[in-house]
């Protein structure tokens, strides 16, 4: 395959960026999108040019490091991560636009790399349980009913990639935060911090400069892990419950 790439290039956080055009030849349809970028970078390096910076780690769709808005879609046209997106999803001769996640809370570090530490700080605000550290507890000590475990797992699938923020027209982080809140709030292990968790994580989210939710549903459409939009509804329910309880005290 032969492709034309239009890639966002930006030297550093302070520099102005712009789209740059590259021709990439010899792309196999079996390559992942990141492998295709590797091909481009190899050539750029040989030509003594600065390779295109992008985030990646596991390349198997589980770590949440990769990003990229491809032709206006976070993680590209398929419901998967960019690292698991294959070039067979494109046609020979296509022109592909590649941009970084865009949000005030995700400043560009370089080219396609953005700083997603705002999501880490939301986790730090409440995405934990008070558990004795040390050896793993006996698994049967705390029974969890199967439907509850299923709910927790559904939300636990979130890999923290931030595609929901990138896809949201308001740059909101509601889907990410709700996945993390619900994952722990439905479990008995998460019960001690059930109220403080949702209040603190939402407060941190608001403080990071993410936008507000208008229920457009773009986040759930873009999410590679299929976190449902109703996850946000459940978090709102938890938040209202926690607020009521806090005012009772």
């Amino acid at each position, binding site marked *: 395959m032969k492709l034309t790439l*239009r890639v*966002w290039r930006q030297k550093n956080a302070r520099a102005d960026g712009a*789209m740059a055009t590259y021709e990439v030849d010899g792309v196999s349809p079996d390559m992942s999108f990141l492998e295709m970028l590797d091909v481009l970078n190899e050539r750029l390096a040989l030509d003594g040019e600065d390779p295109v910076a992008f985030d990646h780690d596991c390349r198997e769709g589980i770590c949440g490091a990769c990003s990229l*808005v491809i*032709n*206006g*879609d976070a993680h590209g046209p398929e419901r998967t991560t960019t690292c698991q997106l294959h070039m067979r999803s494109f046609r020979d001769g296509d022109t592909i*636009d590649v*941009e970084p996640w*865009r*949000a*005030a*809370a995700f400043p560009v570090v370089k080219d396609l790399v953005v700083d997603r530490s705002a999501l880490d700080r939301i986790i730090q605000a409440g995405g934990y349980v008070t558990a004795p550290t040390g050896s793993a507890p006996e698994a049967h000590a705390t029974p969890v009913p199967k439907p509850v475990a299923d709910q927790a797992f559904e939300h636990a699938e979130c890999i923290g990639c931030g595609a929901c923020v990138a896809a949201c*027209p*308001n*740059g*909101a982080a509601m889907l990410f935060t709700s996945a993390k809140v619900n994952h722990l709030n439905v479990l008995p292990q998460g019960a001690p911090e059930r109220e403080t968790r949702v209040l603190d994580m939402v407060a941190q989210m608001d403080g990071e*400069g*993410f*936008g*507000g*939710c*208008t*229920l*457009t*549903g*773009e986040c759930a459409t873009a999410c590679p892990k299929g976190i*449902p*939009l*109703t996850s*946000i*509804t*459940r978090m*709102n*329910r*938890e*938040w*209202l*419950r926690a607020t009521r309880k806090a005012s009772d005290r």
Partner: protein
Amino acid sequence: MAVSGLVMLLYLVVHMIGNLEIYFGAGEFNAYAHWLRTVGEPFMHDEWTLWLVRVVLVAAVVAHAVSAYQLSRRDIRARPTPYVHRRRRASYATRTMRWGGIILGLFVVWHLLDLTTGTVHAGGFQPGHPYQNVVDTFSTWYGDVVYIVAMLALGLHVRHGFWSAAQTLGVGSGARDRALKTVADVLALLLTAGFIAVPVGVMTGVVSWR
């Protein structure tokens, strides 16, 4: 946004049903308008109930507009750099909430100046004779256009708004989602059709002076 929106929605349902009384003739419609001013008596003094409703409504409108403004500012600030490659996103109703809301706000001002105060009313405005005033308004082409366009905007706004309010208040769930969407669609359709029935009635001559 959710609570103030639902307050206004409740009012609109009542208002729409009340408006349909116009099909039963001038006597009934004007009597209904008179009843609005005396409802609750003798416990409530003349027009007290009406003014109570007005105060609640103004509070809801102001709260809705202020929070919409704050939310929009926050949302615009959260995405300072737009994408180069844009694509059509979300449904039409979802995308038009902001402009649709502004249009509806302007419509409410026009509507009050037209049929409550009579300031911009076409023909001689007669206080206490809403039937005649309504027929006047819908006998002009621009009256029909303004009202019908606004009611279409209302339908779209309610369609996304009602469902969204349910999510904000944490009422929705995976199992209930379809039911909530259906209720939103039915509400939007009934409101739009019910309100538009009045200008259509005048245009077709079913509702007229005589």
